[in-house]
């Protein structure tokens, strides 16, 4: 099947700096694709090139198999939900939604019908005559999407549209956006710096850093099988140590941290040899905490230490555990089953995790 959107070798240079470097990806029809990266990584540049507001220095952009490089932004079959939504404050809601239809030269009755349908679709029937600033943040969000969707674009671009909302609303809009995407059955390309937005909504995610794609895959892939140290550090919370490889045994290695801790981890096919410097990443939820050593006997990483800090945060509560050597603090998820309800700062605990939970990368790359 032809992908809805396909970029090949996309590169954008501004003078001496390269904002986007040789990026290629394809988005299959009807899927939700996210580009996740820190601010300044070049994701907005990609978005603006797809929309037609920037010309790529190299590479091609194809929509439904046809190159759109020569198509001006107002003729491209893509529409964009802008970062600050860019609803037209001088028009009411119905006129905002009908704007693109008027441009397409539709009859007034047709425009009214489609506008009404769109409002119904986003669950806001009958607000057509209201002004833009009378709407709440979430409502504006939906209107901005409806304004694009009435044009039935091949691809809808969304440029961090949730950034301006407060936390509670953002959580709700994540679910709502996903539902809207399913309802409209349109390809969404979404850019964000917020990993949880990307993980919750996307079918596929590309993690971007310094103008390049670090890794592309499902949220699950990125989270559990990061390809690079950057992805391991950027997606999800993680413990991170740097050390020197002491032994390699097939897929697993043993490594000694700078403070002397011995840790075992997995290379997942990356070449690491004894004597190399390496980074190891272990997620807090991959680590088990126990009162006695015996419970953890089956793990190949085992550390006994004491609690240095309790970080209460409801279901996401954690403890900081310090091993034998001072200075190496390990963040560990605290099970909320009641077993550790009495845990106090200074208490002696044991922690352990399976070696293949530790992702190892050659040191140096971020």
């Amino acid at each position, binding site marked *: 099947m032809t992908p809805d959107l396909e970029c090949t070798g996309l590169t954008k240079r501004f003078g001496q700096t390269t904002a986007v470097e040789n990026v290629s990806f394809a988005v299959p029809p009807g899927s939700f694709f996210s580009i996740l990266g820190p601010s300044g990584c070049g994701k907005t540049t990609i978005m603006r090139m797809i*929309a*037609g*507001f920037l010309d790529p220095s190299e590479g091609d952009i194809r929509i439904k198999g046809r190159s759109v490089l020569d198509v*001006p*932004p*107002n*003729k*491209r079959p*893509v*529409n*964009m939900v*802008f*970062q*600050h939504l*860019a*609803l*037209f*404050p*001088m*028009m009411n809601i119905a006129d905002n939604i009908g*704007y*693109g239809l*008027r*441009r*397409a030269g539709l009859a007034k009755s047709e425009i009214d019908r489609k506008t009404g349908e769109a409002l119904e679709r986003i669950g806001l029937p009958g607000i057509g005559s209201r002004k833009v600033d009378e709407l709440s943040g979430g409502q504006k969000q939906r209107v901005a999407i409806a*304004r*694009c969707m009435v*044009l039935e674009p091949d691809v809808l671009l969304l440029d961090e549209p949730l950034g301006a909302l407060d936390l509670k609303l953002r959580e709700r809009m994540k679910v709502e956006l996903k539902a809207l995407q399913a309802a409209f059955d349109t390809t969404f390309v979404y850019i964000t710096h917020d990993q949880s937005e990307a993980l919750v909504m996307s079918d596929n995610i590309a993690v971007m850093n310094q103008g390049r794609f670090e890794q592309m895959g499902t949220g699950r892939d990125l989270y559990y099988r990061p390809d690079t140290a950057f992805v391991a550090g950027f997606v999800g919370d993680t413990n991170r140590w740097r050390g020197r490889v002491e032994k390699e045994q097939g897929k697993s290695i043993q490594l000694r941290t700078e403070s002397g801790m011995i840790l075992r981890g997995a290379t997942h096919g990356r070449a690491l040899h004894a004597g190399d410097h390496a980074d190891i990443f272990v997620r807090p939820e991959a680590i088990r905490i126990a009162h006695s050593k015996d419970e953890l006997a089956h793990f190949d990483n085992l550390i006994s230490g004491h609690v240095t800090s309790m970080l209460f945060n409801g279901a996401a509560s954690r403890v900081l555990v310090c091993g034998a050597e001072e200075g190496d603090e390990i963040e560990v998820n605290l099970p909320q089953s009641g077993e550790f309800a009495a845990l106090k700062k200074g208490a002696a605990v044991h922690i352990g995790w399976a070696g293949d939970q530790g992702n190892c990368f050659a040191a140096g790359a971020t």
Partner: protein
Amino acid sequence: MRNEAKLGLALLLTPLLLWLSLLIFIPHVDVFLVSLRERVGVGTYETSLANYLTFFNEPLYLWTFLRTAVMSVLATVITLLIAFPVSYYIAKMVKGRVQSALFLLCLVPFWVSELVRTFGWMILLRETGVFSSLLQFTGLSSGPVEMLYNDGAIMLGLVYTSMLFMVVPLVTTLESLPDEVVEAGYDLGGNGLSVLREIIVPHAMPGIVSGCIVVFMLSLGNYLTPTMLGGKESLWFTELIYSQFIVRFNWELGAAFGFMLLILSSAIVWGMLKLTGQSLEKTMG
């Protein structure tokens, strides 16, 4: 505390009320009263509409009045048409240093008095002026060309003199239009013209209105430019007021003229505000 607040309010209100009543309100009422006086003998007056009747019955007065109004409107429209693309360029097409430099360049000519600016145009336009000399020098004309003392020269002077008061409000409002909104207009299929009509102009409306009001007022009440660039036959209404007051010493008729000018300007300003749904506080404040 309440008393203190009341005292403060009274103290702050006093200068405002003194200013508005003694220098604005009462003097204008007084002008109106004077305009209703008819001199029937030495030092004896009667209340009548005689001065207004004179105004409406003398074709020269009425013609001058209408001509001033129409030319002021025309000057306002021309100023807007010239200033809008420039303001848009400054507000949206350039950024940072270039933007502030261009904006500053727009302001510079208006730090010097209108007299100097008009004088500059006289040097350029008159028979012995720069343009005339250039035309003769290049052989485009065989003799001196008088470009001064016609309606075109008046129009040029009016437009030039009020340009700033159009550019500043336009740049300010256009600058507040986010690029994103313009991009959204294109993204949804609009072209240059429809984006201009449906997005840029509606957004700039407060600036357009306040610019137009000020430019119109300045043109209507201008004395210097029509007199100097238009010469003796310029027929500008302010010249009539001046001559009645200062030359003929007929204050009664002059006051009637002044009041007519006030009514005309208020009516057009009010009409402009109503037509565009703006208010004086929003556009001027």
